[in-house]
C-alpha cells in the first residue's frame, strides 16, 4: 500500500517533470499506477471489503496477462506489446485502453481504431450526445424497490424528441431464465451470480419501472464533454459480456455505475472512501458533490399519475369513474352526459387507466380487454387538450442520510436509563419524510443498548429487519398494507424480562385523510425464548394506529397485542413524536406502556437522532 502511494507520488512528480521536458512517453511502472489505468481495469482502490488491491472483474478474458487481475503493471506491459502494432485486433477489444496508451505513450496514429469494423458499427449506433443517470425511486408495497436502483441512459441528442429511443445501460445480476426460485434471491445476495452490464432499450425500462412497478423515475443529466462521453462508451464496449462479482450490499449496481462514470475523469475519485452498501441515492449525492449534474427531471409513475388525476375529481366523479370501469356503457347514460366534454374525457381516461392498473399484472382476460377498449372509445369520442401535471415531489437526494446514531435517556417504572442506538439503514414511519414516501419503512440492523442505574450496558433490542408498507386505500385503488419484523427484543417471559428471538408479520389496511393515516394490521408471531417449553411458540394478534404528518413533526400513536398458543399474552400502547432539526438530525419523544398477564411497565424517553452518510 505504502509502495503504491509512493509510486503515485512519484507519478505526479514525474509527470510534471516529463511534461516540462516535452517528452510524451511515460514509464510503464508509472503508468500502471495512473488512476485511469486502474479505473479501466476496475481495481479496488480500497473502497469495498472484497478483493482489495485486486480487480473486481471476475473474468479471465478481461486480462491479457495471466497475473493481470492482481498486477496492473504486468497487464499494462501485456497491453502495450499487444496493441503497439498497427492494425492490432486487441485494440478493437479494448479501445479505451488503447486510447489511454496511445495518448500516454505518444503513439502517433490519426485513428488507431479505424480497422475495427464491429466496434465502428456499434459506435455508429450507440447514442452519444448525452448521459443521464436514471434513478427509479422506491414504491410502497414493493420491498424490492425500497433501496432503489440506478442505471445510465444514453441519448442521441441534447434534447431528444423521444427518450423511448434512448439506450439504457444496466448493471445487475446475470441470471438465466431458468433461475426463478427463491434461491435466486439468496444467491443474488450472497454473490452467487456474476454481475454484468447490459444495454436494453430505455422504453423497456420505462415499462418495467414506471408502468409495472409503479416507481417514480428521477433522471439526472450529467455534465460531460463529448470526449468524456466517448471514453465512457469505449470503456463500455470493453465491458461487453464481462463478468463482475455481484454483491447486493456493496458491489451493487450503484457502485458499478460510479466506477463507470469514474473512467471519464478518474482524478475526480467518485469511488473514494469506504462504500459498504452504497445505496443508489448516495450515487446521486456523489454526482452532485462533484458538480456533475446539470438537470433533474421527474417522471411520475402510473400510480402517481392516477392519484393526481383522482384527487382532481370530486366524490361524484370518482364514483362515476368506478361505475365506468365496471360497465363502460354507463357513458351512454344521462349522469355521464351531464358533464362537459373535457370532464367526460378525463373520467373515461382515468377509468381506463385504473382498469389497466389493476389488471396489468394478470393474465390477459378477454372481458377486461373488451372493457378497456370500450373505455378508450369513450375517451376518443370526447376530445380534450391538455394534460394534468403531477406535482413534483422533493427529490430523494434531499432526504436524510442512510445510517443513524442515537443517544437517549428515559425512565422505565422508577428506573432511569440511558440508551445508545445505531441503525444501519434506512427510514422509519416517523423519520423526517422529506424525499421519502409517507407510510414506508425499511429498517435493517437497528441496535439499542441500554444502561440503568443498577445495570451495565445491555442489549435492549436488535432488529434484523423491520419493513412496513402502509399504502392508503381509496375509492379506486385498494392495496393491501403489510409488515414483517424480526430480531431480538427484551420482553416478559416466565416471570422476568429476557432477550427473546422473534419474527412477526401480517397484512393490513391503511387509509389517508389529509395528513392523517390510520392503519391496522393482523399479526402472526413466532418466538423463541428460554422460558417457554416449546422451541418456537406461535402467537397471533393485531395492531392499530394513526400516523399524523405535521409540517414540523411526525406523530405515531397506536397499540398492539398478541396471544401465544400457551395462553401467555403481551400488549403495548405507545405515542411517538419525531421533531426534525434539519436534514440530518431529529429529537424523538416516546411514551410506552407494556402489559402482560397481571402487570405492566410504563416508560418514556427522549432521544437525539443523528443521521449520516
Amino acid at each position, binding site marked *: 500500500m505504502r509502495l503504491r502511494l509512493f509510486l503515485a507520488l512519484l507519478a505526479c512528480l514525474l509527470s510534471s517533470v516529463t511534461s516540462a521536458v516535452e517528452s510524451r512517453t511515460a514509464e510503464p511502472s508509472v503508468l500502471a499506477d495512473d488512476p485511469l489505468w486502474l479505473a479501466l481495469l476496475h481495481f479496488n482502490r480500497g473502497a469495498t471489503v472484497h478483493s482489495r488491491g485486486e480487480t473486481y472483474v471476475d473474468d479471465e478474458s478481461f486480462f491479457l496477462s495471466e497475473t493481470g487481475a492482481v498486477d496492473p503493471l504486468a497487464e499494462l506491459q501485456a497491453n502495450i506489446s499487444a496493441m503497439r502494432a498497427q492494425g492490432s485486433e486487441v485494440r478493437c477489444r479494448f479501445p479505451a485502453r488503447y486510447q489511454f496508451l496511445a495518448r500516454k505513450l505518444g503513439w502517433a496514429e490519426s485513428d488507431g481504431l479505424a480497422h475495427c469494423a464491429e466496434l465502428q458499427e456499434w459506435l455508429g449506433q450507440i447514442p452519444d450526445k448525452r448521459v443521464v443517470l436514471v434513478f427509479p425511486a422506491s414504491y410502497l408495497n414493493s420491498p424490492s424497490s425500497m433501496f432503489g436502483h440506478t442505471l445510465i441512459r444514453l441519448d442521441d441528442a441534447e434534447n431528444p424528441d423521444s427518450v*423511448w429511443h434512448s439506450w439504457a445501460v444496466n448493471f*445487475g*445480476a446475470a441470471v438465466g431464465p431458468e433461475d426463478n426460485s427463491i434461491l435466486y*434471491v439468496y444467491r443474488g445476495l450472497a454473490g452467487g451470480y456474476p454481475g454484468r452490464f*447490459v*444495454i436494453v432499450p430505455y422504453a423497456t425500462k420505462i*415499462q418495467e419501472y414506471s408502468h409495472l412497478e409503479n416507481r417514480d423515475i428521477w433522471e439526472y443529466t450529467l455534465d460531460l464533454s463529448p470526449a468524456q462521453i466517448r471514453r465512457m462508451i469505449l470503456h463500455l464496449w470493453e465491458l461487453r459480456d464481462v463478468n463482475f462479482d455481484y454483491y447486493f450490499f456493496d458491489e451493487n449496481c450503484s457502485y458499478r455505475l460510479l466506477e463507470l462514470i469514474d473512467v471519464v475523469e478518474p482524478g475526480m475519485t467518485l469511488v473514494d472512501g469506504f462504500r459498504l452498501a452504497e445505496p443508489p441515492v448516495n450515487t446521486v449525492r456523489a454526482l452532485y458533490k462533484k458538480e456533475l449534474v446539470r438537470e433533474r427531471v421527474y417522471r411520475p409513475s402510473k400510480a402517481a399519475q392516477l392519484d393526481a388525476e383522482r384527487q382532481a375529481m370530486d366524490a361524484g366523479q370518482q364514483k362515476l369513474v368506478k361505475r365506468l370501469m365496471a360497465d363502460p356503457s354507463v357513458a351512454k347514460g344521462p349522469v355521464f352526459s351531464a358533464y362537459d366534454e373535457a370532464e367526460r374525457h378525463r373520467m373515461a381516461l382515468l377509468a381506463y387507466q385504473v382498469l389497466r392498473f389493476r389488471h396489468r399484472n394478470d393474465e390477459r382476460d378477454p372481458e377486461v*380487454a373488451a372493457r378497456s377498449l370500450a373505455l378508450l372509445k369513450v375517451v376518443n369520442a370526447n376530445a380534450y387538450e391538455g394534460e394534468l401535471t403531477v406535482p413534483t415531489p422533493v427529490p430523494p437526494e434531499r432526504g436524510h442520510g442512510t445510517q443513524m446514531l442515537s443517544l437517549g435517556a428515559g425512565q422505565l417504572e422508577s428506573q432511569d436509563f440511558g440508551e445508545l442506538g445505531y441503525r444501519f439503514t434506512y427510514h422509519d414511519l416517523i423519520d423526517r419524510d422529506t424525499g421519502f414516501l409517507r407510510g414506508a419503512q425499511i429498517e435493517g440492523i437497528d441496535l439499542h443498548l441500554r444502561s440503568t442505574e443498577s445495570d451495565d450496558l445491555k442489549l435492549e433490542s436488535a432488529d434484523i429487519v423491520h419493513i412496513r408498507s402502509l399504502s392508503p386505500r381509496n375509492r379506486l385503488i385498494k392495496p393491501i398494507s403489510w409488515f414483517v419484523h424480526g430480531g431480538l427484543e427484551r420482553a416478559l417471559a416466565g416471570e422476568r424480562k429476557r432477550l427473546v428471538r422473534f419474527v412477526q408479520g401480517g397484512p393490513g389496511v391503511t387509509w389517508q385523510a389529509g395528513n392523517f393515516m390510520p392503519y391496522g394490521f393482523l399479526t402472526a408471531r413466532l418466538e423463541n425464548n428460554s422460558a417457554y417449553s416449546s422451541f418456537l411458540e406461535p402467537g397471533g394478534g393485531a395492531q392499530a394506529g394513526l400516523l399524523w404528518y405535521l409540517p414540523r413533526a411526525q406523530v405515531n400513536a397506536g397499540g398492539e397485542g398478541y396471544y401465544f398458543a400457551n395462553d401467555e399474552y403481551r400488549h403495548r400502547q405507545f405515542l411517538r413524536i419525531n421533531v426534525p432539526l434539519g436534514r440530518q438530525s431529529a429529537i424523538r419523544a416516546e411514551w410506552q406502556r407494556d402489559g402482560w398477564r397481571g402487570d405492566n411497565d410504563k416508560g418514556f424517553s427522549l432521544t437525539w437522532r443523528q443521521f449520516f452518510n
Partner: protein
Amino acid sequence: MKKALVAAVLLGSSVSASAVAPGGPGCGWGNMVFEGKSGLPVHLIATIVNGTSYNKTFGMTTGTNGCDTSGALTYGGQSLLAMNGVLEEVAMDMAAGEGEALTALSVSMGIPAEDRSHFNTVMHDNFSAIFSSEEVTAGDVMESISAVMQSDEKLAKYI
C-alpha cells in the same frame, strides 16, 4: 449473439405462438393489445437483485435478428409496438390524441417534429379503425397505421 437478441426481444412478452404476423413468428408482432404480464412473482424476485436475464445483450442489433426489421415501425431492430406493454400505451395515447408513446412511435417512423401534431390528429381520428377490436395484435395495428398513413396526403411519404 443473434439468437440471444431474439431471446431478448421475446423476454417477458408472452407471444401467442399461433399468430402468424408480419416479420415472422417470434418477433412479438403476434402480441395482442391489453396483454397482461404473467409470471409476476418471478419478475418481482428478479428486481430484488436488479437482475437482468437478458443474456449477452449489448447493443440493439447488428443486422437482422431473425425478425423482418425492414418495416418502418422498428426500433433499433426491435419492434416498438411488439415490446411488452407498449401496444396498450400507444392505444391510450391514440385515443387521447397525444402522449409519450405516440411521440415515440412517430419518431421511430421518421416523422419530423413539424408533422407530428398532424400525425397525432390523424391517429386520433382513426382510432376506431386502427384498434378495431380488443383482439388486434401488434402486427394488425402496424398494418392499419400504414394503411391510414397511405391515404393521408402529408403522411404517405413516411411509409
